[in-house]
Every structure is written in structure tokens, then in C-alpha cells.
């Protein structure tokens, strides 16, 4: 807590002050404090220094493209996985898009005597002595990229096929200016007829290894997801049909509750991870879970698995679970011990002849969520440090937490006093395990069409996740809507960039996004966005519009009609800004227009839902019908996480 207070003082003192503004409505005020140099510290911790981003690029002398021709080929290993082939294909496709030149893709065995772009662990790379050394491999981890230019050849690789694919995008970025803002909003050099091959020495790894896909934009578009370096669920062993909330998939109550009632909480909503104090029975349950994981390990080539509680805030209240809670101040301890036990069983199996072929560095992860959110630690105020209460609460080396602070306030970063309990918990968990995975929340799940403000907290939080060594991040959003409004496309872009490098200049990222996502309409749409952000702050400060679960956003006082109408007029103006493009470049026009229309949905929804009395009955019906048609055309198919958008039509009577 002390950390938080100290930082707050800095916030107030570092930036402002001086006298009282003679505002037209205010009389007098407090005497301002003149800042001293000690107050010039940043409001929240600045750049995170722990990343690997070694980028060396300069123009070389070799001709990559000359007079509209290139002698380069793309070489892949004789045998390689799909992602390596995809990497090669992407390079070929995007070079063609930039220059009209098709480079052949060949395998090592068919490599002609010419310059090449090597993708993956090719024989060509081995022959050239280009490989990822042990030290670099450790720094790259699973998804880092390694790009080298040597003797006018290019070597693109990662420690995994995913890393290789991402390395291909890295090379394209620094050779051809490749950048992705959306499915169609791809920026790359064009009409290239002459180009030198850039000399590159790049060792670049994401600050957060895995960014989980959480938007329909990427869930329904594999190419976009890959280009944004966002992962899908396929790193996790699937237990049942999902990696999450799978405890009952392991220990099916329909089968086992009658046989082992001690395996379940009194109300049957969770497992009992102490088996009501029966250690032998608990071992039997652990063996059941371990066997299931072992069978999935055999079937799936994945290295992460979860043992995750059911999605409720309840917990077992048996005497043993209650005693643990009283002793450790959290319900997480029984889960830690259970997962450790399962981990040990699996390690034993790996050592058997049956299990050895499948041995891997398996990570077992449980939710730190609701009842298991607090860490079993003590806090020393004098030293501002946390420590495990005892050794029995430490996670095994390969056991980790999936921290999901669902009640945190995401308009503010975790350094803010609003989020003190969640910041504290995270700091505590750092002493319990080195394996931290983050599950955060980026939208209003009951109101998909209402924009939410996470822009003030995003970078500071991502830096914090990197600082605690989070390996995986799900910044959960509108995963089940094919497309989303409320500047979700911007959030997706920021997610993609910031997880890779938490120190990117966020304002610069936002500028680039608007320029390339809206084209000639960028200035107008940026004006809408900036006003929206200031309005968020206004609501926060004057109407206590803050919190995640606690906000009910559908009130007229939050969204004045004239403000919504102005934002809608900005979208109309944006369409006019694009008009000249209709003839010059119909494809670009259609792309930008769709993006503007997608963003117009949010203020239109709020106006038509909250301010229907501003229209006659026939006008309102017509506008709502038009809104519905636009949602259908733009594939905005969800009104909320649990509600299809057709329910909105029903409530509107259309």
C-alpha cells in the first residue's frame, strides 16, 4: 500500500500547479503548491527495461530488386511444418504485392545457385553457419524472432515455427515497411522496381510471449491473427472442449459425485481440493486428473494445461477448506498443493517407458480468480516486500497461476489506489511462482456496443505484466462478435503492438493507426476519439463512471444527445472526407468507409436507445431499421457476451 501512496503524491505534484485559473464559474480556491525537482518523477513507473529488442537495420549494397526483377528465391527446409510454409507464402505474397514480382519458393533440395531468403531451419542456414545459439534461444523463448543478413542472403528463423512466421513479418517490416492495422488495412511499399537488400541483425522477442486472441477480428481471421502475432488456444491442452473452467471435465460430477462426495464442495459448484481432509481420496482425485492430462499429452502436442475452477465466486466450505482459508487468508492453497501433486504424478509418468516419449516441459496452471485470487503471503511494510507464508504454499517449478482480477478497475492502471488489492495480490503471487499468466478485461461484457476506456491504463498495466514475467496474456474483449465497434479495432492493434514491446510510444501508435485505418478520414475520426477520451474522464471525475462490473452505462446523463449527435456528425463528415477516393481508388475507399461506418455504430446505438423520444415513431423505426441493416452488413452480431444482437432488435420492436 505504501508504494501506492507515494506514487499518488507524485501524480499530483509532478505535473501541474501554479495558481488558480480565473475560470468564469469559479471563485478562489486552494493555494497552489509550487513543484520542486523531486516532484518531477513520472506518475507511474516508466519504461520496462527487461525486454529483448535488438534491432539493427541499415541499407545494404546488394540489389534485392533491380529494374523490376529479383534473382532471389525463398528456401524452406525439405520437411517443415505448416507455419513455416505459411511464412514463406506470406513473404512471396507480400513481395508480389509490393513489386509485382513472384519469388519462387523452393526446398533445400531444390535450391538453385542464387541468392535466397531462408525461412526456418534450412540446410542453407546451417551451411552458412547461421543458427540460434543457446543464449539467444533462451532470450527468444517460444515466439521471438531472429533475422540475419549474411553474404547478401537473408536468414529468418525462430526457436519454434511460430517464431519463424513472426520473423518473416519482422523481415518484411524492415525491408518493405510491412505493418498491419486490420484485415485489409495492410501497409507495405508499393510499385517497387529497385530496392537494396537491407542489412539486418535482429534479435527481437515479445515482452509478453503469448497474446491470446480475444476479438472476432482475429478469431475469425487466421491470417490477421498471425500477422498481428496473436495466438489462439492451441498452446493449451484441450480438456473437454475448452481449456477454461475445466475442473468438472476432469472430475465429472455426474460420474463421481455419488461415489466421492468428498471431491465436491457442499453446494456442488466447485471441486473440493482437500477432499474434505481425506488425503488418500485426494490422491485418488489427483491421479484421475493426472491420467486425463497424460492421455491428452499423448493426443496433443502442447505444453500448457490448466486445472481451472468453475466460473463462480463460490468455494468449498468444508472444515478443511475453511481452516486453510483462515490460516492463509485465501482459498488458493488447496489448489496449489493439488496442482503440485498432479505435477509430481505426471513427472513420475514421464520417467516411465510409457511416458518418456511424451516428456516435455509441461506447465500446469490454475486460476487465481474470485476465491483464489489473494496470494498466501505476508507483507513487510518496513521493507515493502511480500513473502510466502510458508514453503507449502509455493508452486512447483512448473505450476503457475492464471491471474484473473475480474473486479479490478481497468480504466485505471494497477498502480492506482482503485486497484490496490489486485496490485497487492499480483506482487504476492510473484513470490509464490515464476509462472504467471494474466487474464484481464477490456470491454463491458453486458454492453458490447458501448465504448470502454482502457487507454489510460493499458501501457502501464502491460509494463507491469512484463515486469512480473507474465508469459501469456488474455486481455479479454468481444471474442464472439465477428466485428466490434467502440474503437475495438484500435484496441486490438494496441494489444498486438504493446504485448510485443511494452515500451512502444503509445501516442505514436494511435497516430499511425488512425492514419492507416481511416485514410483521409483520419483527422475527423481522431477528433471523435479524442473527444470520447476526454468525455470518459469527465464522466469518471464528475459522475463516478468508474469500475468494471459496477458500471451500468445506459443512462442519458452519461451520454448527452447533443454529444452523440456531434460524434455521429463526425462520422458523416468522415464519409465526406473519403468521397474523393471513391473514383481514385475504389478499393481503398470501400475499406476506409467500412471502418468509419463500423465506428459510427456505437454513438448511433446510444442515441437510438437512450434518446428515442427525440424522434417521431416513424423516424425512430426507420433509423433503428437502418442501424440493424448496418450491423448485419458490418457483421456486428453480438449485443453482449451472452446476447445475440437479435435480442436488441426484439427489445426495439423491429
Amino acid at each position: 500500500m505504501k508504494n501506492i501512496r507515494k506514487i499518488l503524491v507524485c501524480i499530483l505534484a509532478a505535473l501541474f500547479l501554479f495558481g488558480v485559473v480565473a475560470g468564469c464559474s469559479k471563485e478562489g480556491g486552494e493555494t497552489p503548491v509550487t513543484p520542486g525537482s523531486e516532484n518531477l518523477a513520472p506518475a507511474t513507473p516508466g519504461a520496462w527495461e527487461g525486454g529483448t529488442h535488438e534491432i539493427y537495420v541499415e541499407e545494404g549494397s546488394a540489389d534485392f530488386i533491380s529494374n523490376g526483377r529479383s534473382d532471389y528465391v525463398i528456401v524452406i527446409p525439405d520437411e517443415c511444418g505448416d507455419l513455416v510454409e505459411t511464412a514463406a507464402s506470406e513473404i512471396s505474397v507480400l513481395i508480389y504485392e509490393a513489386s509485382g514480382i513472384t519469388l519462387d519458393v523452393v526446398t533445400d533440395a531444390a535450391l538453385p545457385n542464387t541468392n535466397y531468403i531462408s525461412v526456418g531451419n534450412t540446410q542453407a542456414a546451417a551451411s552458412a553457419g547461421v543458427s540460434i545459439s543457446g543464449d539467444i534461444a533462451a532470450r527468444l523463448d517460444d515466439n521471438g524472432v531472429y533475422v540475419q543478413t549474411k553474404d547478401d542472403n537473408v536468414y529468418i528463423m525462430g526457436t519454434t515455427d511460430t517464431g519463424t512466421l513472426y520473423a518473416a513479418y519482422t523481415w518484411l517490416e524492415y525491408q518493405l515497411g510491412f505493418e498491419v492495422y486490420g484485415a485489409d488495412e495492410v501497409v507495405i511499399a508499393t510499385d517497387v522496381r529497385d530496392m537494396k537488400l537491407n542489412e539486418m541483425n535482429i534479435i527481437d522477442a515479445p515482452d509478453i510471449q503469448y497474446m491470446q486472441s480475444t476479438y472476432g477480428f482475429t478469431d475469425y481471421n487466421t491470417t490477421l491473427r498471425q500477422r498481428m502475432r496473436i495466438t489462439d488456444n492451441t498452446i493449451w491442452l484441450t480438456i473437454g472442449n475448452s481449456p477454461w473452467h475445466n475442473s468438472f471435465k476432469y472430475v465429472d460430477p455426474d460420474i463421481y459425485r455419488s461415489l466421492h462426495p468428498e471431491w465436491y464442495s457442499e453446494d456442488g459448484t466447485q471441486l473440493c481440493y482437500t477432499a474434505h481432509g481425506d488425503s488418500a481420496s485426494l490422491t485418488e482425485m489427483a491421479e484421475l486428473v493426472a491420467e486425463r492430462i497424460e492421455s491428452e499429452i499423448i493426443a496433443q502436442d502442447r505444453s500448457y494445461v490448466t486445472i481451472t475452477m468453475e466460473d463462480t465466486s463460490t468455494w468449498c466450505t468444508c472444515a478443511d477448506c475453511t481452516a486453510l482459508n483462515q490460516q492463509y487468508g485465501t482459498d488458493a492453497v488447496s489448489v496449489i498443493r493439488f496442482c503440485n501433486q498432479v505435477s509430481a504424478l505426471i513427472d513420475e509418468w514421464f520417467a516411465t517407458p510409457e511416458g518418456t516419449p511424451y516428456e516435455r516441459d509441461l506447465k500446469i496452471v490454475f486460476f487465481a480468480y474470485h476465491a483464489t485470487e489473494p496470494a498466501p503471503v505476508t507483507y513487510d511494510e518496513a521493507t515493502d516486500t511480500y513473502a510466502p507464508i510458508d514453503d507449502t504454499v509455493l508452486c512447483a517449478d512448473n505450476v503457475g497461476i492464471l491471474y484473473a482480477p475480474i473486479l479490478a478497475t481497468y480504466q485505471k492502471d494497477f498502480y492506482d489506489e482503485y486497484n490496490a488489492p489486485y496490485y497487492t495480490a499480483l506482487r504476492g503471487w510473484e513470490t509464490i511462482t515464476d509462472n504467471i499468466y494474466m487474464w484481464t478485461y477490456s470491454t463491458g461484457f453486458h454492453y458490447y456496443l458501448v465504448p470502454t476506456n482502457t487507454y489510460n491504463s493499458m501501457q502501464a498495466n502491460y509494463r507491469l505484466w512484463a515486469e512480473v514475467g507474465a508469459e501469456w496474456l488474455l486481455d479479454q474483449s468481444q471474442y464472439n462478435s465477428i466485428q466490434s465497434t467502440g474503437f475495438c479495432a484500435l484496441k486490438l492493434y494496441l494489444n498486438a503492438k504493446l504485448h510485443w514491446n511494452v515500451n512502444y510510444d503509445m501516442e505514436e501508435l494511435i497516430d499511425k493507426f488512425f492514419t492507416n485505418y481511416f485514410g483521409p478520414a483520419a483527422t475527423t475520426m481522431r477528433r471523435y476519439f479524442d473527444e470520447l477520451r476526454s468525455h470518459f474522464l469527465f464522466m469518471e471525475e464528475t459522475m463516478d463512471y468508474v469500475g468494471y462490473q459496477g458500471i451500468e452505462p445506459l443512462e442519458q446523463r452519461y451520454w448527452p444527445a447533443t454529444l452523440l449527435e456531434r460524434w455521429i456528425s463526425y462520422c458523416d463528415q468522415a464519409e465526406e472526407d473519403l468521397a474523393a477516393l471513391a473514383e481514385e481508388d475504389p478499393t481503398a475507399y470501400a475499406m476506409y468507409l467500412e471502418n468509419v461506418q463500423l465506428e459510427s455504430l456505437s454513438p448511433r446505438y446510444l442515441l437510438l436507445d437512450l434518446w428515442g423520444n427525440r424522434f417521431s415513431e416513424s423516424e425512430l423505426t426507420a433509423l433503428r431499421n437502418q442501424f440493424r441493416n448496418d450491423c448485419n452488413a458490418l457483421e456486428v452480431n453480438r449485443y453482449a457476451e451472452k446476447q445475440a444482437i437479435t435480442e436488441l432488435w426484439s427489445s426495439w420492436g423491429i
Partner: protein
Amino acid sequence: MHSGDTWGTPSTFSLYGDCANGQTYATQAYYLWFDYTSKTLYTGANMTEVVRFDDPVVFSQFWNGFENGTAYLSITCGSYNSSSTTLVFTNIANIDLTQGDTEEVRDTQAPAIDIDLPAEIPQAVVGQPYRLFGATVSDDEDSDPDFSCRVWYGYGSSLASEFDVIDGAFTPDRAGDYVIEYSAKDNFGNVATQTVTVRAAARSEALAVTLTGSAQAGLSGENVQVRGYEVSGTVGEWNVAVTASLQGSDVVYDVTDGVFLAEYAGTYTVTYTLSDYISSVSESYDLTVEAGNIVRITEVPALPDYLIAGCTYDLSGAVAYAYASGSPVETAVTFSSTDEQATISGSLFTPATEGEITVTFSAGTAEPVSVTATVVEVGYGDSVHMENYFYGANITSSASSSSVAVQASQDASFTFINPVDAGFSITAAVDPERNAFGILRMTFTDPEDAACGFTLDIFRNEEGANAIVEIDGNTAGSFSGSWYGNEGAPISFTISYNTSTKMLSIGSLTVDLSVAPYSFGGFASGRVSIGGAFAEVSGEAGIFVSSINNQSLNSRDYDIANPQITLLGAMSRSFAPGDVVTVVPAIATDVLDPHVSFTVTVTDPSNAIVTSQSGVALDGVDPGMQYTFVVDRLGTYSVLWEAEDGSGLSQSSYFTISVTDNQAPEIRYVNGSVRTGSVGQTIPVAEIEVTDDFTDDVVYYVYLTRPDGVMIPLYTMAETVTYYNGFIPDVAGAWTVTYYAADDAGNAAIVSYTVNVM
């Protein structure tokens, strides 16, 4: 696929493209067939019938097919378990797509050009503009084919010359043949061309209109005969427009069939304008009209077809003019009636005797004007006999405790004598003991426009089957109306009409009358006259009518239903100060009482009476007119309509109008702003002034956006807001200062500027 059974129509194919159990892709294909002639859908390689779209057992609303016999086929996929799906079409519309040659699926049909040609193509006159004939272009695939229209002299020869088309006309400069070439091209490159040849020559005879006969004087108030005319030198179709203008005034009359009603004494200029295809020419003469000792009745009120004995009708609205002074002077009109028992008081007329009557309007020496109507005795003002509201020859009507029975023993028609609200609802049933008739016909017409309406025919059903319904002769569907009742008890059905959506419901059948083939525009007056008829009567025919527009029809002898108020238009609810509000006309109707007192009152937020823009105090005024007024105060304005029928039953309708401040405050920089600075340097923020149209004390807030994109407030907030007039940046980059000012209504002004910090 299911139709009418619980098992459905099996259709086996693989959604996984998976050929299991020795199957092949061919046997795993999905087949869908549609026989347009029989409107039958089939599935499977063996064409198993799924359903007929015109089967009344399954469908209550019939589908009449695609309008032009063609349709677009589309297929969508959903609930993906993967990121994509691939469909392979091997055959569409009997086109084998496996052969590789896809020429057959190209559009090879050129657009169609339809030129609006006259019966005889007029000759062009050298030196005179010649209007091109209009044309419309259509294409099966391209909604907007390219179209051009060019004119050539010497078309097709090496010396062909093209003529400019200006404002839809070309001007031939020499005699000869000119070809107008109409050309259209669709997206697939199919071209259609049509030509029209026009011969041009010097006009052989000048266009002229020659007056015949002699000028005759006339009298004001009389129809005046003008001179005749002859025409010559015309090309193509021609016409002559004749007008009479009173000299020294703006008064102009159209002369029809050689006469016009000269309302004023004076000198008229009678002008004849002859126009042919090429040009026009005029001729005129003066005509003198003297003051005439004439009185003329020009307008009489329309009487309803049926009057209710004992009910008072206002027959004001008759207009007569006396022309003795040389100008029309309105003069009094009186009226009399053949109903000797009727009461006349001023313009109020109360008929008393049942039967056909004549009302005659008189004014001085004017020729009287008579109108006829039928008076019906219903017990108005006394004990009401609801059955008497059903009036017609060859019918009898009687009332029971639950309904009014209307019966006939031969083909007969009847009318419900009082027009009701156009959003009608009628509940009726066929008498199962008097069902010897083939068609129950209902007619619904606008009482102010007999041409506006529609006819509903309900056909006697086979027992156990639905009854077929036709609207204006078009089969609309069927519903469970029954001629046979249920074990002797009649089965009621409701016919209702929604004025907003123009949907007509007959039992469970719903028909959209706004679309083809009906294209019904609605009842403009807001009222409807209901008529009925028994057709194809072969014995005893009868129906029970239990209610109209929520008015129960039975043997009760008094009215229990309130009047109904209907607005003849839409009104908005939300306005800004200074806006003009329109109060639309409204009507009040009562099923049994033609006489409904009806007023409208408009009040402002302080409850004061509002005055319209034309100076009318809107306090209990006639709602049948439209009023406009300006809202100049914030708050709620109220519009109250009140109606009361002769029985004292009342109805009111209340409409609120919100006037809200929609104007955001204005922010003005007082002394400009500092746009550059350095790290660690104190940078002042701009001083602003905020004004608002309604809020005296506008609160504003100042925000600062750091170069890293984080936005923070530049003030502290306790009981009051304390601002700071500067900030000290700690990093270089772009810092943005934003001012957010909101008035009491929540309207927000947001302005910002950027400071570049080095």
C-alpha cells in the same frame, strides 16, 4: 426439413465433406429442387417433396411467386467450427458446372431500350429545336447500364455528322433525315441500339391559330362563351390552351369547352396558345363582361350517405355569391328539407323521419342545389337500436345479448351507416344455421373518396378446411374462418387494419396492403365506411357482428364505447428553443354517434395557452386543422385533444413535447496559448472564457494528455474545482491541453491544443 409432420423430409449429406462408409462425394452432395410452376420444393437425388408453397393446409399466407419470374440464389454458412468452409457447386439451374465451360453462366442478354414514341413521328423544322423522345433502359443483371443518345445526319455514311443535343433537343440545320441513336451497354459488354429517323424540312406553313366567330359580351356570374379557333401549320401532336385574364388584375381563368365563369365585370383578354411538337404561337382578343344581377351557389356541404334521425348535423359551408356589383359578394345560403319533421336552426339540421330525404340549398335568385340522403332511425338520444345501423335492401337485422345478426335470403348488400375510425377492427362470425351463401363480401371505403378503399371476399370453406380470402380479386391466403361453426356454435373471426403499417389481418392471416398487387395508400380522411354483402346466396344467409372498434354490438340500448381520437400525421416529441412545432390535424370518431365534440388545447411549460404562428390562441380549437407554433421556453409543452360523444362518453389524448437545450457552450481563448516549452519549465495553460445560451455558470474541466497517451485531470476537486494555470512537463513530446465545458443540459464543448515540449 419439416413441413406438416414431426419427422420432416430427410436429406442426407455430409457437412464435413467426409465420405464415410464407402460413400462418394457424388452421393454426399446436397440437392435442392424447386418447381416454379407448381411452387413445390424437393430435396434429395430422388426429388422427395418437401412442401408446396401454395398449400393452404400449411400456409395461411400464399406466396404468388417472384415478380418477374427470376430470382437470385444465395447460400450462407454459419456456426463455424473452423475459419472457413468450401462449397463445390456442380449444377445450378440445370447448368452443368463440371464441364469447365462457363459461358452459359455469363450474361449475354443486351439491355432493353423502350423509347416513348408518339403514334406518328413529328417532322422536324429546320432551325427549330426538336425534342428527343424519352427512353427507359433496363437490364436483367446490371441495375445501371450505360446509356447514350446521339443524333446524326447522314447516319451510317462516311460523311455522317453528329449534332449536339442541348437540353434534350437538337436543332436541324438543313432538310433531310436525321437519326436519333439510342444506345445502352451493360457491365458484361452487351450492347443494345435502337434508332429513330426524323425527317426535317422547312416549315411549309407557318404555325397559326385563327379565331373564328365574333366576340360576345357576358355578364358577371355567368358562364361566358368565347370565340372559336382554327389551327394550321402544326407539326405532330398539338394542343390549344385558352385562358381569360381580367385586365388590371391577377385574375386568370382557364377556358374549358369554350366557356368560363366570369366572376368579375370588366375587360378580359382571352388568349389562345397553340403548341405543337416544335414551337408555339398565341392569339388573343378582348371580351367585355358587364355586371349581372346574378346569384350563384358555388359550394354546398357534402352530406353523409346516411343521416341518423335525431342527430344534429352542421350544414354550414354552403357558399353563394351575388355578382350584381360586378364582383363576387358572398351571400347567405339557406336550406330546407323534404323531412317535414326535421328541425332547422341556423346551419344546424336535425332530421326526424326515416327514409330518403332531399335537402335543398337556396340563395336569392340562384338556382337551388339539392342533395339527397337516407335518414335512418336508430333511437338516437333515446333507446339505441344497434341493429338499425346495418342498413340495406333485402336484409334484416336483429340484436341479441351478444351480437347483431344480419340476414338475407337472396344476394344482398348492406352498409354500417356511420363511418368509423380507419384503424378498424370488426369481430364477426357466420351463422352456421344460415350459411347457404358462397361469399361474404366486405367493402371498406374512404367516406370522402369513394374510389379509395378495397374489397375483401371470404369464400365459404369446405368443412374442416380454411376459408380462402381474396382482396380486390387477388388471392391473399386463407384462415380458419368457418361457415359451420363448432357443434352449432358460430366461430368468430376478427378483421382488423393497422393504419401505420397498412397491414390487414383476417383471423390468423396477415396481408401487407401497401405492396403489390394491392399498393393501397391508406384512408386519407382517417375514417372508413364499412359495407357488406352476401353473394351466391342459395338459401338463408346470415352473420353475427359482435363488435366494431371495441364497440360491442348487441341489444343493449345505450352507447358504452368512448370516442376514438386519431392523429392524421406524425408529430415529433423533441425540439430545441426556436423550433417550430406542428400540431397535425386530428379526428374523433364514435362507432354509434356521428356527432362528437372535439377540441385541442396547447399549453407551454408554465401552463399558459400557446398562440399559433397565425395568431390563434390554441385553447379548445378545432383539431381538424393544422397549427404551428414556436417553442421559446425550455421544458414540456402539452397538446391535449378532448372528444365527447352525444352520450357524454369522453376520450382524451395527451402528447408532450420536450424542449431542451441542444446548444453546447462556447469556449473562447482569451489571450491565445503557449505552444512550445521545455522539460522542467512551467508552461501556462490558455485562459478561456465560456458562455452558454441558458446556463449561467458553466463548469469546465481541463485535462492534460501526456506524450505517452495517458490523459489526466489538470485540477483538484473537493467541494469546488480548483484549477491550475500551468503544468511542468517531465518528458519531451507532445502534451495536449483539453478544455471540457458542459452546461446544465449536459451539452459539451471540447477544445484542445498541443504544446510541443523539447
